[in-house]
């Protein structure tokens, strides 16, 4: 379903009519395209008054072929000897032009350079410094990364990968080039759109968070309950065993960048966990999985339980299973879960996973890197909770400490993640990009605090955001966001109390709030209703500085100074 409207400026050195046509037909986004005539790259980049820059866009795509950027590179096409230093200067100039237009959009995408035709080249001459096309193309791309890679707003797209995925003969179409001045086939352009949309999804913080895996014939070859762990096909001198091992290695690398892993397998738990722990060729260890359900129950039920235990939305979940019947069951029962069809041949698992872009992260924060650990600790907390009948007693035993802080520069990426990813405990569900967020917090009348939490099990990191807007002593709550991992521990009550502190400090009697209902944020509404802050079926509410008493559990709270900025 198309929900997201995205505006994009397209500047290209070739005719992009087909690219724009395919983009407009996208099922994932509604692209609002603003383009200039092709081959007007430098004319547009150096003209700040060009029509294309009049409206701020979400994305600017600058797609060029190398000979347009570097006249020196073009000389290579007719076999001339060139001056590599001149190529560097020309790339530098191109990058400085891009830098000058960065303010007109939230992000700037630049596909790296490939040739505009299929070139077999001369094996020995291709990598000659002074006359080789391939050598100088690699150098140009390297300069491009060096110049643009430093800036967070710039993203370099890997067009070489699109070429590999299509296969060069299918990526190019010489007839399209000579008739239309577009060198690339539709298949190639579709690869580009696939990458572009996945990157944009990731920047908006909507990439997948949890991968739930089956075991038999998914992580290893064979049925462990039948043949025993010693006879599984995993690693060793066996082509399929190696394929399963490579697949595990790739999954492990994703988990190191913040993807959570869990197991849902129909197996005897003791036998399966023994295999994970004992098999010497296992790449994934039991500690890589935040939780597991290894039993003979329905997999859809097990997945629902895992999701509920981890407090993650179903739309953030991907499920891998070799068995099409199990996949079908999960697809039908839990349509929000993404269940891709694994290839029939395990030798293709790794390639399949590499092409699956839903886990791609535009940025990886410190929290992402330890997310698995945080969730594992969460499982321990939950098991402790079941031991205590009283919620307040349980919270007490956690020895919870929270710290409310003014927004700091180093916390901005995490704040953006929370703003764009939190669905359930989120009052307004406003989504902001980096620039919009920076603009908002820079406004003097706006206040934004981050909330950190830790307890005896470990540090949760930043798990909440509270923000207000105050003009002429009239205050509105803008964001009330809490990660689902910590909801129900009294932190939300502390935040309401903090809002009252703010009122008292500024001698204000009330704070206005508005609940913006979505399909997923009834949790915050129920919380406000429980405190009698919001009335049934109402969206507007008021927090009075002297009323709405809230129960505060025993939590150590550190608060920031409330003095005027």
């Amino acid at each position, binding site marked *: 379903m198309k929900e997201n409207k995205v505006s994009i400026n397209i500047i290209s050195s070739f005719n992009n*009519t*087909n690219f724009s*046509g*395919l983009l*407009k*037909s996208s099922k994932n986004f509604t692209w609002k395209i603003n383009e200039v005539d092709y081959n007007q790259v430098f004319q547009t980049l150096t003209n700040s008054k060009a029509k294309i820059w009049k409206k701020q866009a979400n994305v600017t795509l600058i797609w060029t072929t190398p000979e347009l950027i570097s006249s020196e590179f073009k000389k290579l096409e007719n076999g001339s000897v060139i001056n590599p230093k001149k190529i560097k200067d020309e790339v530098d100039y191109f990058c400085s032009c891009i830098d000058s237009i960065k303010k007109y959009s939230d992000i700037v995408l630049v596909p790296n350079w490939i040739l505009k035709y299929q070139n077999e080249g001369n094996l020995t001459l291709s990598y000659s410094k002074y006359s080789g096309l391939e050598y100088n193309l690699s150098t140009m791309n390297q300069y491009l990364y060096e110049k643009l890679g430093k800036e967070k707003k710039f993203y370099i797209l890997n067009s070489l990968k699109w070429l590999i995925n299509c296969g060069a003969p299918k990526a190019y*179409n010489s*007839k*399209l080039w000579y*008739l*239309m001045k577009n060198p690339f086939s*539709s298949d190639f352009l579709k690869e580009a759109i696939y990458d572009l949309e996945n990157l944009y999804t990731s920047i908006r913080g909507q990439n997948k968070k949890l991968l739930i895996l089956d075991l038999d014939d998914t992580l290893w070859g064979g049925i462990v309950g039948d043949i025993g762990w010693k006879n599984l096909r995993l690693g060793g001198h066996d082509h399929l065993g190696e394929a399963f091992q490579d697949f595990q290695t790739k999954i492990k690398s994703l988990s190191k960048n913040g993807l959570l892993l869990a197991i849902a397998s129909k197996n005897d738990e003791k036998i399966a966990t023994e295999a994970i722990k004992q098999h010497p060729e296992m790449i994934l260890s039991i500690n890589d999985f935040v939780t597991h359900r290894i039993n003979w129950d329905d997999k859809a039920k097990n997945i629902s339980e895992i999701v509920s235990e981890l407090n993650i939305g179903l739309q953030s979940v991907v499920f891998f299973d070799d068995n099409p019947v199990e996949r079908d069951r999960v697809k039908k029962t839990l349509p929000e879960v993404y269940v891709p069809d694994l290839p029939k041949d395990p030798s293709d698992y790794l390639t399949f996973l590499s092409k699956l872009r839903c886990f791609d992260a535009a940025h990886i924060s410190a929290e992402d890197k330890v997310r698995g650990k945080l969730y594992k600790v969460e499982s321990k907390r939950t098991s402790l909770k079941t031991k205590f009948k009283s919620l307040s007693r349980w919270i007490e035993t956690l020895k919870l400490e929270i710290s409310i802080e003014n927004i700091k520069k180093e916390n901005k990426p995490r704040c953006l993640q929370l703003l764009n990813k939190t669905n359930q405990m989120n009052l307004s569900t406003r989504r902001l990009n980096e620039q919009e967020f920076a603009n908002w917090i820079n406004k003097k009348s706006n206040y934004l605090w981050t909330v950190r939490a830790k307890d005896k099990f470990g540090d949760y990191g930043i798990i909440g955001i509270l923000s207000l807007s105050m003009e002429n002593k009239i205050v509105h709550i803008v964001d009330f966001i809490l990660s689902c991992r910590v909801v129900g521990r009294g932190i939300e009550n502390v935040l309401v109390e903090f809002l009252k502190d703010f009122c008292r400090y500024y001698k204000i009697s009330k704070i206005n709030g508005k609940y913006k209902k979505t399909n997923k944020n009834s949790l915050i509404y129920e919380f406000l209703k429980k405190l009698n802050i919001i009335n049934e079926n109402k969206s507007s509410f008021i927090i009075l500085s002297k009323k709405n008493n809230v129960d505060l559990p025993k939590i150590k709270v550190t608060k920031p100074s409330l003095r005027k900025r």
Partner: protein
Amino acid sequence: MKQVIKKSIIELNEMLPKEKKLEIKDTTPLISEQSNLESIDLVNLFVNLEKNLKEKGDFILTFDEIINNIDQLKTIGSLENFLIKKFKK
């Protein structure tokens, strides 16, 4: 031949806005006053056709042949007749 034409039109439709998408039936206009297609769309259609014909059985259709036989390409149906006639030879 019907399958090749169908595949080529489906590929073209992927790039066309809703209002311009071609209905796959014999009477749908291609090169005529009733057609909604612009020259760039026709280029895409014939490039698709050329590619799909080649894949099907190494049938070669050049752009010059298309230009020289525009009168026979007014509709999807007449395009099919033209191709059948050409590759029967």
